[in-house]
């Protein structure tokens, strides 16, 4: 059970190739960090893993099957700015339902309070909103998560709380996880291994 990137090539139209023959793998149940300075391609790599961008060449396989081009994506991306990832006019109940009927147990594990479900995104703090984005990504068919600077915008206590709660779920479900961050201390804390994005070029 592995997410495998084989001979991946990618570049933005008109730009120099960002990745050439990149090889990368994450086993289910393990947490891999991706490091590198801003502009080095970390977020692009995350978007490729999740299927938000299509590689120019090479293959990405999820537990042996190619990354599906339509339908549910087994690799789910969690963004840095949750306020840009949800519909601002919906109540949170609808934001969750867009993905799946999130079990009460998951909401409890993430510390989502029942009263928050009737609010709109603007009435929640960033940390509260991010928990909804995480809940939404934890679809029963999700096999891997990509956390792209998931807690960079939050204070230390919110950051530690979100990570402890999410890592418990990831362990329980045996998910694989890719963590993109520029904060070495955080990666040292949460990852089993780390890869510098420059080595993927």
């Amino acid at each position, binding site marked *: 059970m592995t997410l495998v990137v084989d001979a991946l090539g990618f570049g933005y139209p008109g730009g120099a190739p960002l990745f050439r023959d990149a090889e990368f793998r994450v086993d289910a149940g393990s947490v891999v960090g991706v490091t590198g300075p*801003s502009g080095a391609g970390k977020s692009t790599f995350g978007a490729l893993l999740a299927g938000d961008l299509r590689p120019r060449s090479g293959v990405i396989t999820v537990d042996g099957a190619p990354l599906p081009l339509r339908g549910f994506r087994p690799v789910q991306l969690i963004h840095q700015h949750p306020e840009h990832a949800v519909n601002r006019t919906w109540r949170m109940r609808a934001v969750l339902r867009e993905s799946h009927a999130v079990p009460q147990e998951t909401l409890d594990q993430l510390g989502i309070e029942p009263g928050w479900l009737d609010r709109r995104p603007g009435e929640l703090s960033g940390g509260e909103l991010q928990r909804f984005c995480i809940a939404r990504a934890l679809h029963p068919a999700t096999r891997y998560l990509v956390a792209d600077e998931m807690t960079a*915008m*939050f204070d230390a*206590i919110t*950051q530690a709380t979100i990570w402890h709660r999410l890592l418990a779920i990831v362990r329980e479900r045996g998910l694989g996880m890719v963590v993109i961050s*520029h904060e070495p201390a955080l990666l040292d*804390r949460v990852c089993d291994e780390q890869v510098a994005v420059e080595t993927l070029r």
Partner: protein
Amino acid sequence: MSEPILSISGLDVSFVQYARGLRTRTVTGITGLDLEVAEGEILAVLGASGSGKTLLAQAILGILPHNARTGGDIVFRGSRLSPARRERLLGREISYIPQSVTSLDPLMPVGAQVRIGLDPAVAEHERRRLFARYDLPDQVAGLHPHQLSGGMLRRVLFATGVRDTVRLLIADEPTPGLHAEAVAEVLGHLRELAAEGVAVLLITHDINAAVSVARRVAVMNQGHLVTVEAADAFTGDGERLRHPFARDLWRALPQNRFSPGGTE
């Protein structure tokens, strides 16, 4: 300590919201906040999102949402900051560097944005000087924000906010999402301004940035300023920090205990 540039006493901020129909409810943003920033000082304001630290900046700048009610006093250089006085001082003596680079106008070349508010006779000359100060190549002036890297946009924001006449600079979250060298660069710019006598209010949730650049760190939680700590007390297991919430914040860092609060 030298003369305070900014002195805030008993600041309250609350919001009136419509709950259902015409019934309203009042939501408290900030309660009873006292704070002083001296000439040449960098004071960091640390707190969680939702703790009221951005409201503090908005209250000083007079840019709170229209349903906000405020109380208490804000005194700038010895006299009360009335709306009329604020109007005269904003952009001249009081300046603001916003949190997001999306505050730049996406349709206007960055050079023109730096010239806004400058005396037209010397604007272009000043623009060149500010570009040189923030290490921005001259040819960048004609480019639009989307053509610049995140680090360059930060420097453009500094160039739009810094004027010779500025005595108080409010910087709202200038560091998140930047890698270590870029953070060091931003903090270096703040230090430079303080050395010129500018009072700097650095609003941030980045403890490391706050501690490395400020001497005093004010900590906010749920609308209250709970404590002002010496920056050098943020060390070890935080045993020299006076307030339990400050200790919790410090210990929650991944390089410390990575504890989700409640270590007290």
